[in-house]
């Protein structure tokens, strides 16, 4: 109801101030609901630390993730290497810090691409209806009938593993979720009075899509996007674990956990894989908590 008021108020050029007021209170209310969920605050805090780690990776670990210290292979933590060195003598701390870059790049990149495809398909499908909707939804169903990871493995086999390919492939396998959400929202929104009102006044379809439908999608999409980031980070870690992710000189958390399949590392040299494992869990959890908080903020009716 309030969202609709806001959209109506924003339509009228002469009452922009009134619209601003409604919008602000809505946003503030959402912010309050977000803040009332304490885990979301913890998640935001942890995630911003990881984000800073990714940005300042080269400051935190000046020697870089690819520098090999031949004097210290498989060296336990300490003695110039904060977290020790891995099986070829690279600094674990440096690889963890630069791994954050890889994870966040893949997480955010894949979601941006997936949203671009999903929003376009969802808007077209929901607003055009008829045969466009039928065709697009059958394609969406087809993508959803094969588990994302299996699709991703097949695509990676085709295009070969690299950072960019991993991003594109994850996006290609996960866009149906956002397409579904957008289509559902559009279907309910387009029947509402404010859209009819806009049509009656003579607003054209592209304008209705961009300035009336799209703003109302931002809430649900932010939730989908946040969980998408967590999912993409998990998938990247899984792919690197299977040896199908980013290629070795680039560091990735999944790759480092993969080393634990070597029994010597699993049993005696845990410092090599444990930090990366902890980072994966921390990142995914914090993003999930932010997502839960956003869901509460966007949809006040959802309980727990």
């Amino acid at each position, binding site marked *: 109801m309030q969202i609709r008021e806001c959209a109506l108020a924003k339509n009228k050029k002469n009452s922009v101030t009134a619209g601003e007021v409604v919008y602000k209170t809505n946003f503030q209310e959402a912010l309050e609901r977000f803040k009332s969920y304490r885990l979301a605050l913890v998640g935001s805090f942890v995630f911003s630390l990881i984000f800073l780690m990714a940005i300042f990776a080269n400051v935190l670990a000046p020697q870089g993730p690819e520098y090999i210290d031949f004097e210290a292979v498989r060296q336990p933590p300490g003695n110039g290497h904060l977290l020790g060195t891995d099986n070829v003598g690279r600094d674990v701390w440096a690889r963890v810090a630069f791994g954050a870059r890889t994870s966040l790049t893949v997480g955010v990149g894949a979601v941006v691409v997936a949203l671009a495809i999903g929003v376009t398909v969802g808007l077209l499908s929901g607003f055009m209806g008829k045969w466009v909707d039928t065709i697009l939804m*059958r*394609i969406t*169903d*087809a*993508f*959803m*009938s*094969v*588990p*994302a*990871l*299996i699709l991703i*493995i*097949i*695509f*990676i*086999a*085709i*295009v070969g593993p690299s950072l960019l390919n991993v991003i594109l492939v994850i996006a290609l396998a996960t866009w149906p979720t956002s397409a579904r959400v957008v289509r559902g929202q559009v279907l309910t929104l387009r029947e509402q009075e404010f859209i009819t009102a806009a049509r009656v006044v003579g607003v054209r379809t592209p304008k209705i899509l961009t300035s009336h439908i799209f703003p109302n999608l931002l809430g649900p999409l932010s939730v989908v996007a946040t969980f998408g980031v*967590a999912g993409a980070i*998990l998938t990247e*870690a*899984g792919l690197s*674990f*299977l040896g*199908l992710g980013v290629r070795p000189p680039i560091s990735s958390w*999944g790759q480092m*956990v993969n080393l*634990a*399949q070597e029994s010597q590392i*699993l*049993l005696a040299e845990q410092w090599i*894989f444990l930090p990366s*494992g902890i980072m*994966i*869990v921390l990142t*995914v*959890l914090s993003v*999930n908590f932010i997502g839960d908080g956003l869901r509460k903020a966007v949809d006040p009716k959802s309980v*727990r």
Partner: protein
Amino acid sequence: MIAIRAWELLAGPSLRRSSSSFIRQGRDALSASSLPVATTESFYKIKLELYPSSRGFELLSTLVRRIGSSIVVILVTLTLIFVGLALAPGDELDTLLTPEAAAQLSPEDIAEKRAELGLDKPVPVRYAIWMSKTLSGDLGYSTSEDANVSEVLKTYVGNTAILIFAALFLGVILGVLFGILAALKENTWIDYVVGSIPIFIAGVPGFILSLGFIYFISVKLNALPAGGMHSLDDDSFLDLLKHMILPVSVLALVLAAQLVRYTRASMLEVLNSEFIIAAKSKGISSRRVTFNHAFKAALVPIISVIGLHLPEIIAGAVITETVFRWEGMGTLAVRAAGGRDVPMVMGIVVVVAITVVITNLITDIAYTIADPRVRLG
């Protein structure tokens, strides 16, 4: 409408009180004549409206339509993936021949090899040939496994099926039991503990969970084998079971973590609904109300959740199988994809897509039967 409001007002605040005051309030509410009393006549009238006589026919016709669209979805999936693989640079020959071997062969020899594999024909022709063969049950020859695709699939599908069915069974039992426990002990420490564990499991990737299991249970406790499907010289079922426990537990835990949340929410909703309050106010024991009335109603939405999570379980099996060196579809898919083995990859996709689509159909039907208000769409 007004009567319902009055009922809510009376029953609402008493929801969380002790059962004795609860029952008293319920009786008061029932005796208050503001509520419409259901006579036999009105009851049947409602029943007739809810179950029109054409319902059986309607169900059948929607079923036929749904099966039709499921087949379309499977065909679209196969087409998209075939085209994707065919348009990609490189083909099976590239992986069969090492660069050195290819350098020794004359262009004519290579062309001959390509013709042998049917790679010289244009993509639409290859697609038509492949599709007609697939529809007649012939999935082609796997270059990476050096055997017929359907033969290879038979062994591997079975291995994965054992794993997934066991995980489904264990996961559903764990998830539903703990979900109900959390709902019954709402807002106690039991609820908080049971409710927060799944949140943390959701953040732990399957391979880290698997490695943790291997480290603590296989290595530290030396209780269970760390991988593989059989010990040497031991083909007994008991041995297979031993090897299954760890991978199945990983998959089941991930599923149960999801189910606990849904079951708890669904159970709470039912426990606070009017028919449960009515049952309690009639004096039926709390245990009977929980297990005979609430449990059945709460299970209905969970059916669809299980169906929705099947693709996730299959995806989880890919990684879990790899960690535990379980010879299933996941291990096969990773190997076939690495070897650019198109017939094998397509065979796996056929099996997985059909399984997922059929499961979706079955869940929808089960849901419709369990809850007559739901219509097949």
